């Protein structure tokens, strides 16, 4: 349960962004959570709601999209989505493939009301 801390870091970034845009009112934040990030989306939303209630972010809506694991083949450089933990390259059958995505926790956008 480290989602509360992650929610806090996320709000810090939104707050900085709001300041940068003349204290605009942030109404939505787009967040991408990789399936290998170790973050549970429901717990993150719960954390955000607990932190924003009765604050300037009361109306902030969290729009969370999940990102699947992506690997790159070390033999043929093919990039592919990993389904059901199967990390073998679907192009050439190579078993040594590298994680290139799906562990991200990032803010994609912030939406302000003007």
């Amino acid at each position: 349960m480290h989602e509360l801390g992650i929610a806090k870091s996320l709000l810090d970034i939104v707050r900085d962004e709001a300041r940068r845009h003349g204290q605009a009112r942030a109404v939505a934040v787009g967040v991408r959570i990789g399936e290998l990030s170790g973050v549970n989306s429901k717990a993150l939303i719960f954390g955000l709601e607990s932190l924003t209630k009765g604050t300037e972010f009361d109306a902030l809506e969290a729009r969370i999209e999940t990102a699947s694991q992506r690997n790159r083949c070390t033999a043929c450089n093919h990039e592919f989505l990993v389904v059901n933990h199967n990390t073998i390259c679907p192009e050439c059958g190579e078993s040594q493939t590298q994680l290139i995505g799906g562990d991200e926790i990032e803010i994609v956008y912030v939406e302000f009301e003007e």
Partner: protein
Amino acid sequence: MKKRIALKQKVLENNDSIARRLRAVFESQKILTLNMIGSPGAGKTALLEQTLRRLPSGLRAAVLTGDIETDNDAARLARFGKPVRQITTGGACHLDAGMIERELDKLETQKVDILFVENVGNLVCPASFDLGEASKIVVLSVTEGDDKPIKYPATFAKADLLVLNKIDLLPHVPFDLARARGNAKRVRPGIDIIETSCLSGEGIDDWLRWIQTRASAM
């Protein structure tokens, strides 16, 4: 009117920037830093006890050990005469890079070849926090179940080594070694796997060899 500002900013950028700084320090001072992750009771501290007891004296070790409360682990590990510092997170379920940086100032790092970081007992949260380590190591005991690599893929997908611990208990538990190995390789094809028992000492030499190979490559 609504206005959308595209960001693409990492939420844990604060942690990651400290981790990058730490990694640069470890690399320039040739310190092999290993981030040891596993459930409570998997045997992380027991493995470190064996390690500190048997590591060749030419390799100077230090330990940062994390727990939510108590300094019990530091007390267990301090008996071997190596520098050991307890990090008490006071509730947090993982270590973060800032905690490592704060403790690093208190270690004489110029006298350290290998820094073991024993994370808080947890197979989920530590995976999200880069500590600047050279490798993550998962310690999984045979009493936990052979499907753990696919149940907790985030941790296993980022680990360079899986230590399958407590193999002396294999006759008593329904743990399938081949299935555990297969599941780990499925999630992380390049993962090394070592089987150990900290009670009988079996496999500890393999583990020490793995560390020595890594340390000499620094």
